[in-house]
């Protein structure tokens, strides 16, 4: 059995994962052009600036797209079916996640969702808002 995947934080991504450990979803913002950035980078892909800061995201967004996984990688086979989604945060950045607290058949594109940090490894899952 393949070992389940886990993130290896680095010099740039460290604050993101420290935030997750604390129960907070943080993303980067460029102090030069003001745009939000995800995934974390060493330079701003919009304006080439290097002065990026970390901000706490509102933690809410919408399902941009999703798939119900039936044929999973070996280490996730006992969990099917499950929903992997791309969520667009209110700040405008898109991140991959899994949706929880919802049946696969109940998921819709553009459905409002909120972050739900949980699991081992601890990760930013999302669930329907409210």
């Amino acid at each position, binding site marked *: 059995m393949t070992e389940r995947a886990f993130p290896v934080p680095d010099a740039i991504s460290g604050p993101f994962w420290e935030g997750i450990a604390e129960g907070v979803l943080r993303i980067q913002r460029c102090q030069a052009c003001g745009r939000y950035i995800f995934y974390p980078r060493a330079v701003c892909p919009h304006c080439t600036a290097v002065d990026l800061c970390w901000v706490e995201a509102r933690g809410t967004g919408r399902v941009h797209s999703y798939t119900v996984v039936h044929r999973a990688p070996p280490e996730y086979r006992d969990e099917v079916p499950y929903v992997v989604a791309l969520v667009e945060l209110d700040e405008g950045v898109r991140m*991959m996640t899994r949706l929880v607290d919802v049946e696969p058949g109940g998921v819709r594109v553009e459905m409002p969702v909120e972050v739900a940090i949980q699991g081992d490894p601890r990760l930013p899952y999302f669930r329907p808002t409210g």
Partner: protein
Amino acid sequence: MSTVERVAAIAGVAESDLGDVAPKTSIQLQAEAARDALAEAGLTFSDVDALLSAGGETFAPSMAIGEYLGIRPRFTDSTNIGGASFVAHAGHAYQSIAAGLCEVALITYGSTQRSQASRSLGRGGGLRGPAQFEGVWGLPAPVGAYALAATRHMHTYGTRPEQLAEVAVATRKWASLNERAFMRQPITIEDVLNSRWISEPLHLLDCCLVTDGGGAVVIVARERARDLPKRPVWILGHGETHTHLGISSMPDLTTTPAVYSGAAAFGMAGLGPADIDVCEVYDSFTITVLLTLEALGFCGRGESGDFVSGQRTAPGGEFPLNTNGGGLSYCHPGMYGIFTLIEATRQLRGESGERQVDGARVALANGTGGVLSSAATVVLGRD
């Protein structure tokens, strides 16, 4: 027909053994295909002065094939942009010939992913770099990413599962006319919709095959093309680009980078979608075909579902597409792009037998790599 200057032509093409080739190796497949493609062009290994390759087991595949065949190239290219690589290589060969760097370019590919059972849906363990944000969710690679694009296309444009299935059914009809195709038994739209889910909204029969296979393409300078054994197939235009690596970073899930590579290739050729007689596009999944047809301008945004309906891309239909049976039914060793060049060339030579498109003079080949990440397009024509 395009009036652009003739610079370089495809002079030889060949597949290796396809399907399950055990105990052959990927380098053997490349060598055998290279020999056959060069024979078509009336050439031998000693004539080759440019090598282009991607994939296989080594970090520098053009070095591997050079060593194996005893070729010391003047131009070398191991660019890997996924399954689009070989179509991109055709453009690189054209430009290196145009620059006077070489005269005979050999593109090769080989894979034994089926007999080696090396295809996997994911990888566990510690994830570094950008992968740490995508690799932890259990998205099966690459099918899950294509499923995300399909869901978004369905939401935005109302595309239906049976429209995706039209592609699989039509492609299988072409495969039934190709004795080298892996899957030749006809299927119906219901068969596709009733096949098991892989990653919704994609069923098993929305997905490409997992086979072994390889191929080779020989591209020569105009001077060399004058006295070929086969009719030359001219490269009239080419383009390439990529927009992302991971699906989370795709700018628009329904717009593939073929929108750029196609525009570049058409622009260079001085031609447009209406000029194409036969079309070979990478069909990793049925959704890949719909998105690519829109990106290349064969139909409008969101119109691809209607465009392929009524078996319009099948044998006898108005729009001959993936006439070898494609990655869906003919062969798919992991990086399919080279086979789009091989089939387009055979169609323009009039060699495709039962599946020949009558009077085909201009063809388009399009490769897609990664998770709709890269695209490379060539427009080809005969005299």
